[in-house]
């Protein structure tokens, strides 16, 4: 489907550039993104000139001219132009102000439906439930009946939820993102991302990054990103899905440590999924990251196992500290979007832990007493209506 066409001649060039850049990647946008940009485009076409007056006044002061910024063009030059401009902070404030004016009208068109976010910590964290989810404000603690075999915790909790949600609301409406391969293993319809399963593609990307860095072909991360734009996950499961192929590539290359640290991948992929695909169901399964090795850690894109004979060991305490922050980031990301406000149940759990934290609207109900995982699974299915 070709991108829609909008008349943006009246929109200041720095704002229009952002929008046009999104349209250029139309074939790699999720349905939720396309709907948003169609709403935004239609709104902007009819938007009064006053909405853009502060930006129109600011652009000449920034040195924006048809020569420095041709209409319809948005390249790294323009990105650098903005970043280095003395008035960049003011430009950001004006852009934020424009969106604050636009968003209520765009949000009003979004119909709410029950959503569910499950954040699952790994077994082996060196703390009890009293030290978990300390950055999440509010909610209630619920006692859980856990299986003796900890490896069954995640599968029992999620049992069929993601696939049923995907069957009802579309494949990009249900996601399982994890460091390992256990949570998503049985999925047939939902979107599944696994750090471990992407090992070959990650290795190829790291080799390319290392090669390019050694050759000195690029000046900085943005140029590197451009260079790697074509390096799609051909050998991964997303070869036939341009939307997910681009999502995976962008997640691994634009997410800082996502290539290197398993939990960073899960956090950034989850945040990006929430931001872009707006799934009704998302389960984020974190793991334990490895300790940093002497010397080889400085060579960030080298294969850490090959670079040193020092054995790889897990960093339990470090992982616990990392994840306390990531729980917060995933949770608060959803809260930024109208799709999730007031209709989302958040469940924070850890494999084998006999307590969870639940933040949910009043109509998300759970059976009383010690809660078995199958009962929790049923409550979640009822909430989603799947």
């Amino acid at each position, binding site marked *: 489907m070709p991108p829609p066409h909008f008349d943006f001649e009246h929109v200041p060039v720095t704002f229009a550039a952002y929008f046009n850049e999104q349209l250029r990647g139309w074939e790699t946008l999720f349905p939720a993104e396309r709907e948003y940009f169609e709403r935004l485009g239609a709104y902007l076409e009819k938007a009064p000139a006053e909405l853009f007056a502060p930006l129109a006044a600011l652009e000449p002061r920034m040195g924006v001219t048809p020569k420095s910024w041709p209409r319809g063009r948005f390249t790294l030059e323009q990105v650098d132009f903005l970043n*280095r401009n003395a008035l960049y902070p003011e430009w950001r404030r004006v852009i934020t102000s424009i969106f604050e004016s636009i968003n209520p009208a765009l949000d009003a068109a979004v119909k709410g439906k029950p959503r569910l976010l499950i954040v699952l910590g790994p077994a082996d964290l060196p703390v009890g439930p009293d030290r978990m989810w300390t950055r999440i404000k509010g909610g209630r603690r619920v006692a859980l009946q856990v299986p003796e075999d900890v490896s069954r915790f995640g599968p029992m909790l999620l049992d069929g939820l993601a696939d049923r949600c995907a069957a009802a609301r579309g494949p990009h409406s249900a996601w399982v993102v994890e460091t390992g391969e256990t949570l998503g293993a049985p999925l047939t319809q939902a979107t599944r991302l696994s750090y471990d399963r992407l090992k070959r593609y990650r290795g190829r990307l790291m080799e390319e990054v290392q090669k390019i860095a050694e050759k000195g072909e690029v*000046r900085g991360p943005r140029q590197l990103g451009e260079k790697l734009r074509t390096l799609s996950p051909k050998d991964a499961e997303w070869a036939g899905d341009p939307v997910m192929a681009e999502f995976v590539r962008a997640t691994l290359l634009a997410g*800082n440590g996502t290539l290197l640290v398993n*939990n960073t991948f899960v956090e950034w992929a989850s945040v990006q999924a929430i931001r872009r695909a707006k799934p009704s169901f998302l389960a984020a399964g974190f793991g334990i*990251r490895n300790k*940093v*090795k002497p*010397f080889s850690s*400085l060579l960030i894109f080298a294969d850490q196992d090959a670079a040193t004979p020092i054995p790889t060991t897990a960093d339990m305490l470090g992982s616990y500290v990392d994840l306390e922050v*990531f729980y917060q980031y995933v949770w608060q990301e959803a809260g930024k979007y109208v799709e999730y406000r007031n209709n989302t149940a958040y469940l924070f759990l850890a494999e084998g832990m006999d307590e969870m934290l639940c933040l949910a609207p009043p109509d998300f109900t759970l059976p009383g007493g010690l809660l078995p995982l199958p009962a929790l699974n049923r409550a979640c299915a009822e909430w989603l209506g799947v």
Partner: protein
Amino acid sequence: MQTRDFLKLAGLTIAQRILPAPLLAFWQQAAGAAAAGRKVIIVTFGGGVRKAETFSPEGLRNIPRLAALRPSGYFYRNCLNEGVLSHFNSTASIVTGNWQRVDDFGFEAPGSATLFEQYRKSLKAGPLDAWVIATNKSFAAMGASGAREYGLPFGANVVLPKQLLLEAINDIVKKPAAGDLSDRGAVQQRLETILQEGYEGVGWTIFKGGRQMDKHVRTTLTRAMGEFINGPEAPTSGDELTFFITREVMREFAPRLLLVNFWDMDVAHWGSYSLYLQAITKTDRLTGMLWDEVRENPKYKDNTTVLILPELGRDGDVNTANGFLNHRSGDASCRNTWLLALGAGVTKGATDTPIRHVDVAATAASILGIRAEGMAGSPAKEILV
């Protein structure tokens, strides 16, 4: 005629009549400092740390040394970075006294004269009297600007120890026969080879003898590198190496002007909060050890002012792209950090009044007794009264 030109001609006697008393006292202080051969060390507590993890009630546990030193110095609770939020531009703004908007990754020199150039040109200081020792490997151009009438002949020696270490490790990884990374001897040997071979390629800029490395410099740094490699702790950190090299430079060359760039905490980009906190605590320890050296080294004791500040913060946890991982949002958490001044001429105290990054070079210039030209920043008179 500019006011300061007038003052120069008129001298202190006339200045006493026309200047407000605090300003006059400040100027006299600066003149006294210069006469005493005052030294300045600027420490960028980097690369990128928020108040939340440092000088906040919950952050103090990460910085026990700085927290303990704070009462003996002057503390600015608000230190503003109003420029580009990249490491190079932020640090270049600190050392030039002007907001820099050059290439983010060090492919361009700062656009206006650095403090090093102004110092060396103004006082005809020697090439070993101003140094930049930086963990950030993109800082090769930090020592000298592209400004007319300044530039490389007046620049600082720039040493990038981490880049040197990286080259050595990379070489060993590629050539297994040379030894693996657990073999410190092999690494040291490779480091020494690099020092002998081609230092320019790994980030050295030594302004002596037609850009040839001085024998004394080479010997000193090779020895320091060996001590680092064979030290009691497993050397996992570029900042540790930067500290060791800095200490050797202080002991051997005793420069009057030194920029020490710590950078390990930029590991936050990897998305590990625990590694970020560990890096902060390590930088705190190294900064404390640097202060110990200042107090114990007879060439620095009682005549050195140390200015410690992050070159930038990191994004806040709320309403930003990804919180502590990045530092480009421009929010208060990113732009507003702190500055701690210690040592000679520094009064004790603290203030909420903001200081800007561009004020640092102007302050250092005053301490060194030079007339800084063309700086947007102003001397921080609070710490020098």
